C-alpha cells in the first residue's frame, strides 16, 4: 500500500473498513466537515457521506453510549475522542458500560465498538491534553487496548480493532502523526508484540513515542557493542507477556520504557508478570524508565524533562547490562 504518514494511515484504515463493511461508521467532534482536529479523517465525509461520517456535539458520554447502543443493534461504530484526556468525561460509559455490557448480559451480544483517542505528551498542550491515557484502563476488564507505534501498525491495528467483536481503545500518539513509513499488509493482529530489533544483552519493551526513543538508544548502544533487543508491545490488553518472556529467556535482563508515571502503569504489570514467571532467569533487576509522578507540565523544558529521555533510557540499559547477579 506504499508509504504514508501515521496520520494518513489512520484515515486510510478507517476508509478501508468503511468500504469493507457498510455497518462501519465514524462519529466524533469535527471529524466530518473539518476532517478532524488532527486531520486524520480528511476526505472521509466527501467519500462516504454524512450518514456514515458524523459530526457531533460536545457530548462524549452520549457518543460512547450511543456507540454501545448502535453496536448492540449490529453496527460497528468508530468514535473519535479528540484528545484521549477527554476519556475522563465519558469514563463511566467506557469502563462501566462498554467494558461490561457483554459480561453483564451473559454474552447476549458482542460490542464491536472502536474508540480512537489522541494520546500523549510532547507538544505543549498542557496537563489536560497530554496524558498517556492508556494507563487509565488497565484495571478495567472487558476492553482491548491498542497503542500503535509505527505507520504499518497504526493502519493494521486500527483495521483489526474495527473488525474486532469487542470494545477496543486505539490510542493514536499525537507525537507520531507525521511519522512516515510503509504499510505492507492489511490486518495486524491485536494482542501480539513485535520485536523491532534483535539483541542479546538486554530486552527493552516500549510503546509509541517511547518505542522510537528506545530504538534510537538501542542503535546507538549497538555501536558500543551493547546489543539490545527492542520489543514494541503494541497491545496492552491482552498483553503479549509470552513474547517478552521469550526474549528475557535469552537476554536475562529487562528494561521497560513508559510514557507516564510508574504507579498503575503497564510497565509495572509487565514486570510483575515477568518476575513471577522468570525470576530465576533474571540476572539484573527489571527496570522501568517512567515519567515523574506529576501532571504533564506546560513549559517546554519541563515537559521535555517529564518525558523519559534517551539519556535516561540509555542509562537504564547500561545499568541493566552492568548488573550481575
Amino acid at each position, binding site marked *: 500500500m506504499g508509504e504514508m504518514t501515521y496520520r494518513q494511515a489512520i484515515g486510510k484504515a478507517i476508509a478501508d473498513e468503511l468500504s469493507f463493511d457498510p455497518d462501519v*461508521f465514524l462519529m466524533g467532534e469535527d471529524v466530518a466537515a473539518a476532517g478532524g482536529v488532527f486531520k486524520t479523517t480528511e476526505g472521509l465525509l466527501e467519500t462516504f457521506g454524512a*450518514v456514515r461520517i458524523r459530526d*457531533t*456535539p460536545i*457530548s*462524549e*458520554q*452520549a*457518543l*460512547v*453510549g*450511543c*456507540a*454501545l*447502543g*448502535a*453496536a*448492540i*443493534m*449490529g*453496527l460497528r*461504530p468508530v468514535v473519535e475522542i479528540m484528545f484521549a484526556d477527554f476519556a475522563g468525561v465519558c469514563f*463511566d*460509559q467506557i469502563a*462501566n*458500560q462498554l467494558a461490561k*455490557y*457483554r*459480561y*453483564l*448480559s*451473559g*454474552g*447476549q*451480544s*458482542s*460490542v464491536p465498538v472502536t474508540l480512537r483517542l489522541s494520546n500523549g505528551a510532547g507538544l505543549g498542550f498542557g496537563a489536560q491534553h497530554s496524558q498517556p491515557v492508556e494507563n487509565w484502563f488497565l484495571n478495567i*476488564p*472487558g476492553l*482491548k487496548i491498542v497503542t500503535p507505534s509505527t505507520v504499518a501498525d497504526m493502519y493494521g491495528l486500527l483495521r483489526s480493532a474495527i*473488525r*474486532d*467483536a*469487542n470494545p477496543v481503545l486505539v490510542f493514536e500518539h499525537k507525537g507520531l502523526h507525521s511519522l512516515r513509513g510503509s504499510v505492507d499488509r492489511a490486518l495486524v493482529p491485536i494482542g501480539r508484540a513485535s520485536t523491532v530489533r534483535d539483541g542479546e544483552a538486554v530486552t527493552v519493551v516500549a510503546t509509541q513515542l517511547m518505542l522510537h526513543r528506545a530504538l534510537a538508544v538501542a542503535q546507538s548502544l549497538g555501536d558500543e557493542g551493547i546489543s539490545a533487543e527492542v520489543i514494541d508491545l503494541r497491545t496492552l490488553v491482552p498483553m503479549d507477556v509470552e513474547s517478552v518472556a521469550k526474549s528475557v529467556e535469552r537476554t536475562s535482563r529487562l528494561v521497560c520504557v513508559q510514557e507516564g508515571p510508574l504507579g498503575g502503569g503497564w510497565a509495572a504489570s509487565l514486570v510483575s508478570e515477568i518476575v513471577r514467571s522468570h525470576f530465576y532467569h533474571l540476572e539484573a533487576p527489571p527496570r522501568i524508565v517512567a515519567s515523574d509522578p506529576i501532571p504533564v507540565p506546560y513549559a517546554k523544558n519541563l515537559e521535555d524533562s517529564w518525558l523519559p529521555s534517551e539519556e535516561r533510557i540509555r542509562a537504564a540499559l547500561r545499568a541493566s547490562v552492568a548488573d550481575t547477579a
Partner: protein
Amino acid sequence: MYTRTSAAPEIDSDEAMVRAQLAARCDRGDVEVLRTMLVIRYFEDEVEQMFSRGQVRGSTHLGQGQEAVAVGASRALRRGDSVTCTYRGHAALLAMGATAERCFGEILGKTDGLCRGKGGSMHLTDVALGVLGSFAIVGANLPVTVGAALAAQYRGQDAVSLAFFGDGSTNIGAFHESLNLAAIWHLPAIFVCENNLYGEYSRIEATTSVASIADRAVAYGIPGVRVDGNDVLAVRSAVGEAVERARSGAGPTLLEALTYRHRGHSRTDPATYRPPGELEEWLVRDPIARLAYGVVEAGVLTTGEVDDLEAQVEAEVLAGATTALGWSDPESADRLEDVFADG
C-alpha cells in the same frame, strides 16, 4: 403483598372519575394488559419475599405501583423496537415478554437466568426481546437508546428505541447529552421518565429545579408530555403518539409518567421519609385496580373472572419462582466466559 382487586381500598370521587374515563376506553384486548401488570406485581412481591427469606442477597429495586408505565409503553411498541431500562427494570423485562422464570433465575444468580447469573437484579437483559439492558448507573441507559435509535435511522428502518428512567435521573449529565443528541439528529427515540416523586430517599423538589420533568423538553426543542403514569391506557396512547412521531422521522419525545412506588427505594429502605397518608393516597390510584375496574365496567370481564385471573397469575408466577429456585448455580469456571467475544 398484592391486595386482590376484590379487597382493594375504597376510592374517592376523583378516582371514581379517572376510573370511569378509563373504563370508557377499555376493550377486550386490555385483558392481556391487565394480566401482564398482574404478572409484574406478583413477581415483585415474590422477589421481596425471596429477599426476606434470605434466598437472594445484594440489593433489589421493586416497582410495585409503577406497572402501568412499563406495560403501557411496551404495548405501543412492536417487534424490532427496543427498550433500555434501569436497575428498577423487572417490570420492563416482563412487559416486553421475558418469562418470570428466567427473571427470577437471574435474580437468584442461576445459570439459566437471563444473563447466566452474571448480571443480577439490576442488570436483567434480553436482547432477543428488544430489551437491550437494565443499567445500574443512573442515566447510563439513555445514550444506549440513542444509539439503538441511530441504528434504525442509519439502516432506514422505522424501528424506535425507548428509554425508561427515573425523575432523579434527569439531573445527571447523560440525560442532557442524550436528549440533545437525539434531538439534533431527529432520532426515533422515546424518553420515558417514570416520575415516582422520589430519587432514593429524596423528594423531587429537593433535587430537581423544575416542577414538571416534561418542561425540560424545551431545552431540546422537542415535545414534552406529562401523562398519568397509573393509567395504563393513557400511557399506551401517549407513548403511541411519540412512537408515531419517531417513526415518521420527526424525532424524539420526552414523556413524563407520574406514578409512585409502593415500596422503598431498595431492599433496605423502609421509606419512612414519606409524609403520612401519601402511600395510602397512591394505593387508591393503584394502576392494576384501575384497569381491573375498567375491564369489569366495560363488560369485558366479571369481577369473578378478575379474581380468577389474579389467582391464576399468582400461581403461575409462584410456579416460576419454584422452577427458578430449582435451577443450578453456575459452575465456578463459567465466570471466565462472556468477557470477550471471539473474532
